[in-house]
């Protein structure tokens, strides 16, 4: 992907703060996972959260989508401030995510898994859905069209009818991204989307992430360990260490920050 392309769009879409995390702290008993962290995510950007293992990155994502409830601090999403929120509510407000370990319905096909991502958008009542007639049918056709567009977008036509349990890991990751996209989210949280992938799969995934961002204008927050990928993809990077924020800024800024180099990056190569 041409870097200039993606910079141009991100400046275009750069605007209001979509999500703000203010002074959030999270502890499990005596273990402090996150300590007084603040940062924001602007609409239309790709925001990376990086840091060494156990820095609190996944906890941060879990806080954002309401799975964990921070003991202190506030989260403002689309101008609405909250302290506690259930994942269900977060999802219906437009936050979708993928997981570090693939969490798909292994026995279901790719198509059904992605279709499952539409369930929050289904309105027809149980009666019609049972019969798959009338409004339920019309609705299903419409959802299927959206799902087919995602299948096309992610180039997974060949596995449309394959149970996902049979698929290689890289493809499962892609299906999971598809399911998150099916929610047509405003904010997409990706937890290590490229973990365990080979070079080629990583390149594909990077391309899809940038394409999601440019084509659908989806705001993306991602956790990733491949620093090369992070620096190429993201507009801004937050660096966590031991639950604290140690740096925040553009990839270039972060890359040259001495604290970050000491804590995470090591000697530049």
């Amino acid at each position, binding site marked *: 992907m041409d870097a200039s392309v993606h910079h141009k769009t991100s400046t275009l879409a750069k605007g209001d703060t979509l999500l703000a995390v203010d002074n959030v702290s999270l502890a499990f008993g005596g273990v402090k996972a996150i300590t007084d962290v603040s940062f924001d995510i602007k609409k239309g950007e790709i925001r990376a959260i990086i840091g060494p293992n156990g820095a609190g990155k996944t906890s941060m994502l879990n806080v954002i989508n309401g799975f964990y409830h921070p003991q202190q601090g506030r989260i403002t999403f689309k101008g609405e401030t909250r302290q506690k929120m259930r994942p269900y509510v977060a999802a219906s407000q437009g936050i979708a995510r993928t997981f570090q370990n693939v969490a798909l319905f292994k026995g279901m096909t790719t198509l059904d898994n992605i279709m499952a991502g539409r369930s929050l958008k289904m309105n027809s009542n149980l009666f019609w859905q049972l019969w798959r007639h009338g409004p339920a049918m019309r609705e299903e056709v419409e959802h299927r069209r959206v799902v*087919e567009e995602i299948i096309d977008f992610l180039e997974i036509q*060949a596995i449309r009818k394959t149970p996902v349990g049979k698929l290689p890991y890289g493809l499962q990751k892609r299906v999971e991204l598809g399911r998150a996209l099916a929610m047509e989210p405003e904010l997409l949280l990706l937890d290590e989307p490229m973990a365990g992938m080979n070079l080629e799969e990583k390149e594909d995934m990077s391309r899809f992430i940038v394409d999601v961002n*440019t084509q659908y204008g989806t705001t993306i927050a991602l956790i990733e360990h491949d620093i090369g990928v992070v620096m190429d993809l993201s507009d801004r990077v937050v660096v966590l260490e031991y639950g604290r924020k140690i740096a925040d800024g553009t990839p270039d800024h972060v890359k040259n920050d001495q604290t970050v180099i000491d804590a995470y990056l090591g000697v530049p190569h």
Partner: protein
Amino acid sequence: MEAAKALREDTFPKLLARNARVRGARPAIRHKDLGIWQTWSWAEVYETVRALAVGYRALGLERGDTIAIVGANRPKLYWSMMAAQMLGAIPVPVYADAVADEMAYVLEHAQVKLAAVQDQEQVDKILSIADRLHYLKFIAYDWERGLRDYDHTRLKPINELIAEGRGLLKDPAIASALDESIAAGVGADISVILYTSGTTGRSKGVMLSAERCINAATDSVKFDRLNDHDEVLAYLPLAWVGDHYMNYAQGLVAGYCMSCPESADTVQQDLREIGPTFYFAPPRVFENLLTRVMIRMEDASALKRKMFHYFIGIAKQYGEKILNGESVPLAGQLLYGLGNLLVYAPLKNVLGFSRMRVGYTAGEAIGPELFSFYRSLGLNLKQLYGQTEAFLYVTVQPDGQIRADTVGPLAPNVEVKISEEGEVLFKSPGMFLGYFRDDERTHETLTPDGFIKTGDAGFFEPQSGHLKIIDRAKDVGKMANGDLFPPKYVENKLKFFPNIKEAVAFGDTRDFVTCFLNIDITAVGNWAERNNVVYASYQELAGHPLVYDMIASHVDEVNRLLAAEPMMAGAQIKRFLILHKELDADDGELTRTQKVRRGFIAERYAPLIDALYNGSSEADISTEVTFEDGRKGTISARVKVRDCTLVPVSAHNKAA
């Protein structure tokens, strides 16, 4: 102009107009999009192509210009070819998987003014070499994803061109100018330039004239009785003569419908959904299919497995005879009928061959067992021999004269001679006009009396009049003791084993024959699973001692077969090794049509060849590989060499 229309259609745009007139409502092209097959009738295609032609005209495409077509089989790319031909411009289809360097050569050599490409990947590739393309003015693309934010001064979606063309066509002056342009096309015009895959050096642009293309296609349409109710699946590379012939030329002549798969990965499913009546595939495809069927049957329940093997046995016994119309005992007919109900028909359905009336394979030798497997199921699979320079057919097997080991008698209106050196020479209705901007090589290829040299060594079988191809003429060598060494003949015998994917034999001027092998990762991987062989990579599996044992038994078997043929007995394989990586077109080891480039491989793996001949039991090799994005890396390995059993000719004959 009406008078011109009344004449026989001698260009493809005229044929398109005729099809729109004669069978306007019949399907012309299908494409699976968002999971649903979309169909365009001949009338719709004609209207769309006219609009697209006007769109290209507005971009400056004129009579005699060339336009590159880069991408997979998609309607808009086929329409771009037709639209270009309407303007008298010449389409130049290019292998979509060519790396930037290869593409730069072809595009610059063909002096393309426009390029019609599939997607962002191809746009990126062409933009990356744009400074080397002095004639290229504009790129039109089919799939818009990811391209929205590109600089569009020299870039436009094909959809927009069609829309603009539709608008322009409302002006009667423009419409009649287009009609005149179509009518102005004559049969002697260059219709298309097909770049050969370059088995030997830089690829050459084969110029084909409209009239000759149409003549050749008309002959074969008649030969196989194709009509506008036939269906094909267009899945072969656009740049390859087979696609241009079977799908484009024959489709326009016979008026049948071509279906474009959803993506390269869905071909197998799409095949099943379309159920083509006319099908072409290189032997490799049939081989892969059979391997997959066999692997899946191994996983089936015991009852199903038994039933499958029993009825495949019945098919072997009677199937081909029934297909050839020979007499078969009643019991055989009944059993075959039952087998058809229980095994053959369901199997054909899964493979997408239920409606197949005529199937062809060509390009490489096909294993006799493989060939008769498909034929015994009742599939009318035949062989042909052809060349880009011939616009395909040189020889072809008519129904009822099918053999695995020949390529058949002469195709209609083809003349063939065998030169004194044993090289096959031909003249054919579709024969080329010459190589584009390469008179020197055109002269090299033509004999003084106008025959084309194929570069293949072959002979006619006296009894049947069928042509048999031995090998590339320049590859047939002599061993140190004077024995004949036909490398491909040996390699094909090896490749008939499902576990061996690729073989490269050496022996010219040497004391004995040796070879490099590639294992087939699907077949051997499955075997490994069954035999508790643990491996993490291709390289590890290829070097596994048990794999070596298994492959060695195959090589011994080949030696026994070779020993049975007096002419070939000297070419038995004495030593072999399994390469640590798969031979790949990206590394220049195979051509784009997957043929081995023996000379290049010999150079690249020189240390391994030394090891084969100096008696050492292993050798170190490190090779550069090219990744899909063009980056380079190195693979190093220690490769083991194995000795094989040679079968003494006399002993074998006694035993036999």
